[in-house]
């Protein structure tokens, strides 16, 4: 089960780029704040996979340690983000981002 022998690194570059663009499109087209947070998670995951792929291909374990730390920060970010979304829902009874424009100007 070792992909390093037969798959070039450019395949991982293509795949992670497309996955990242799906996340960007999700942030742009959705209005639900929960789905926007999920799209951000998707982007973080594509970057993680690319970092792990480069780490494995260049035989350097520091990249995988970095992926581990990114996972830690992403977990903390999701916990705080969901707490904020619950708080917004309690206050305004909606998590539509077009309602939440008080801080815009």
């Amino acid at each position, binding site marked *: *089960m*070792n*992909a*390093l*022998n*037969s*798959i070039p*690194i*450019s*395949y991982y*570059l*293509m*795949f992670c*780029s*497309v996955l*990242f*663009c*799906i*996340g*960007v*499109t999700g942030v*742009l*087209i959705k*209005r*639900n704040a*929960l*789905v926007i*947070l*999920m799209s951000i*998670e*998707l982007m973080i995951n594509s970057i*993680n*996979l690319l970092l*792990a*792929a*480069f780490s*494995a291909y*260049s*035989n*350097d*374990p*520091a990249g*995988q*340690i970095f992926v581990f*730390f990114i*996972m*830690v*920060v*992403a*977990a*903390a*970010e999701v*916990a*705080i983000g*969901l*707490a904020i*979304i619950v*708080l917004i829902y309690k206050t305004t009874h909606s*998590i*539509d981002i077009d309602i939440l424009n008080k801080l815009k100007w």
Partner: protein
Amino acid sequence: MFTNYIFYFLSALALYSGVMMLLSKKPIHSVLFLTLTFFAIGGHYILLNAQFLAIVHIIVYAGAIMVLFLFTVMLLNLNKDERSPKPVWVKGAAIIAGAMLGMVLIGVFRGYDLHLVQHPMESQIGLVKELGRILYRDYMLPFEISSILFLTAMVGAVLLGKKEQI
């Protein structure tokens, strides 16, 4: 070769469920498709022989974060359609912008053909033993600081979710 087919299958599964996450109307379907994407990415980690990352990814993302999302969706009773969807031209502009970003990224990376790997068969860096040694020897301070970050996040989430106002 066999690993090539596994790679193609996992990539197609991840991309399909990522697109379906955007296309599904209800948030709970989006959460379930995102879980499928996370499992496909975990399969990619196993394919890269990064076993520690695969286990951590499955536990953290497909376990903890997905439970958090599902809990929030069910707690807030958000399982309904978007009330007023964005106008069509905004969606079209967003899709065009995302596709153009994808074209730029692919165009940049297309000619990338760096031969990075020297000893492809000896890639044992993703195992728990190797990574644990490096984590506790070279990255001890960031590891401890990340534990403080977790404690701060936990306290902050509890404080934000409290009933009475602060």
